[in-house]
């Protein structure tokens, strides 16, 4: 990897950070993985390909709502950013079909953390 310079870091503006409009993040810390986040992450990768759903799937750390793990955050253009909890493989597939493709939010899995 190329060495970074001070300029490389200084020119970054976090306010203008663009991480794309359509993405799913899966919380992959110990507690998330213990609750099954690994399976969910793989299911999302495989099923999105199989079903031709275009979405960027990433890993992230712990959001803090441990009792609701595994947590999956979804951002799709035109909809608010949503945090789903207690996600299973089946729920993950429903997220792809219902939320990402049809732009309908899922019932009973959204968590808002105070």
């Amino acid at each position, binding site marked *: *990897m190329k060495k*970074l310079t001070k300029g490389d870091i200084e020119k*970054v503006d976090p306010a203008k950070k663009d991480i794309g409009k359509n993405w799913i993040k899966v919380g992959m*810390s110990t507690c998330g993985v213990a609750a099954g986040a690994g399976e969910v992450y793989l299911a999302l990768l495989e099923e999105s390909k199989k079903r031709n759903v275009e979405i960027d799937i990433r*890993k992230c750390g*712990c959001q803090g709502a441990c009792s*609701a793990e595994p947590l999956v*955050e979804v951002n799709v253009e035109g909809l608010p950013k949503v945090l789903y909890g207690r996600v299973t493989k089946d729920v993950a597939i429903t997220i792809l079909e219902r939320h990402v493709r049809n732009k309908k939010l899922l*019932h009973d899995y959204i*968590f808002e953390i105070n």
Partner: protein
Amino acid sequence: MEKKIIYLRDTDSAQQDRINDFFTLFSNELRDTNLIEQVQLVKIADIGLYEKGVTVKILPENIVYIGIKNNDVKKIIEETIKNNKIIKELLYEKKSKQIRAVLKNCGYIDPESMEDYIAAGGYKALVKVLTEMKPENVIDELKKSGLRGRGGAGYPTWMKWNFARGMNSLEKYVICNGDEGDPGAYMDRSVLEGDPHSVLEGMIIAGYTIGSSKGFFYIRAEYPLAVERVQKAIDQAAAAGLLGSNILGSNFNFELEIRLGAGAFVCGEETALIASIEGKRGTPHPRPPYPSVKGLWDKPTIINNVETLANIPQLIAGGGAKFASIGTEKSKGTKVFALTGKVKNSGLVEVPMGITLREIIFDIGGGILGNRDIKAIQTGGPSGGVIPREFLDTPVDYENLGKLGSIMGSGGMIAIDDTDCLVDLAKFYLKFCVDESCGKCAPCRLGGYQLLRILEKISEGNGELEDLNKLKKISYAMQKASLCGLGQSASNPVFSTIKYFEEEYRQHIVNKRCLAGKCKALVYFKILPQKCKKCGLCMKNCPSNAILGSREAGYVIDPQKCIKCGACFDICKFKAVMKE
């Protein structure tokens, strides 16, 4: 009209089906007004509010209404959804109790990607330090910020760093204490797993400030994922020139290495931790000399907790004064707690210093499981104490928790309800400390063992009133005479439970009863004839044939034979078996 979304949630836990009625009401109303296509109605699992009745949130405006009744539905659709008017009577001004500073990136960036960290503003503090700040400027900012060690003791960070900076030595070390041994706490693990680069950045800045060129991460071996992610972060930073020689074109050199803990609680104590990095048994030694004078391999060393170091980048980037704007007079900034025990939403929370315990447990944690009564809160793990419910409105900071006989600790916060026995809890913590005592000094080695024996005697029903005095005396001796923090604080759980719950101890000693039903020898099982349906299930499941009777006559438990296993209590579908 812009597409709207309505979140629907019943925040009262007792009303299971009410939410479906409201869902029908709302969808009928939307259909009648021909809005069903423009509005998404979604039942959600948690809205971050508790015991506030039926609650809706309307997006994208973020309007929250609470305590909604049936006849409010029409009004909400008509006024807010159609005409964008706010209904004042229902409005709830939702203020988040949490402030995400240390956990800013946790759960948002990919912890395995340095690019993600940099894109979120990472390493800007390091650039600032290397280009425009001298070590003494960093110390000044730390002093202004009022940052105190997040590992538990709350020692001002700037003083620690300043001592080490002032030492004349070619070799100095920076250590990150990631030996999170407090059972029930996992703040450090989450930070190391979720945002490792922020801790790295804090360490590099620490190295620059005290004039060190070598740092160690000391991480529990029980945290393999944290170790893996930190190692990845170190490799990435080294490849990008953020570690190594002439960092970012300056003449500052710094290297980092991971050393693993091996399951010894005492190694969270700084002198024991140093011994462990040196490859020896983790036995502490007396201070002074403090590590900042004579630490790792007898060289000046600073040891900071993970959370303290993770605070550094945002503190430097935003300035000490901004950091100090949050918190109380003597405790600044935020604190991460691992909220667990009998609380509904257990998890990681980050709150400003000075928030009350009640706000943490009820507004963020959602209250106690099964809506039972809260009895106490335990903070600080095996070195801390319990705080009874009367003090729920105490603002959380180092001084206040200390006054109540507990400590801030590293951030474990455990809710205890009326089904928990405090004698048993004290025994649990004490057993932990007795197991973990390194054995070097007598007060801890012998005192802990004696305390445990007395507690066991009490919970077996053989306690005498004189034992209470003995417990107090031994606790006091351990606090005064032990060599290190582990021994000095090991008796805290005993001390504080006696202080606030002496009545419960007396119940055990005088009445030979454990009202919470935890101490087996002091629990008695009884079959209530008025509830018993005479099914005989208890008799079939009793391993010691202690249940006598027949389907006609009903059943009784023979106390002589009962081994108090609780099998009958668990199996009875009619709650006819009683514990007392």
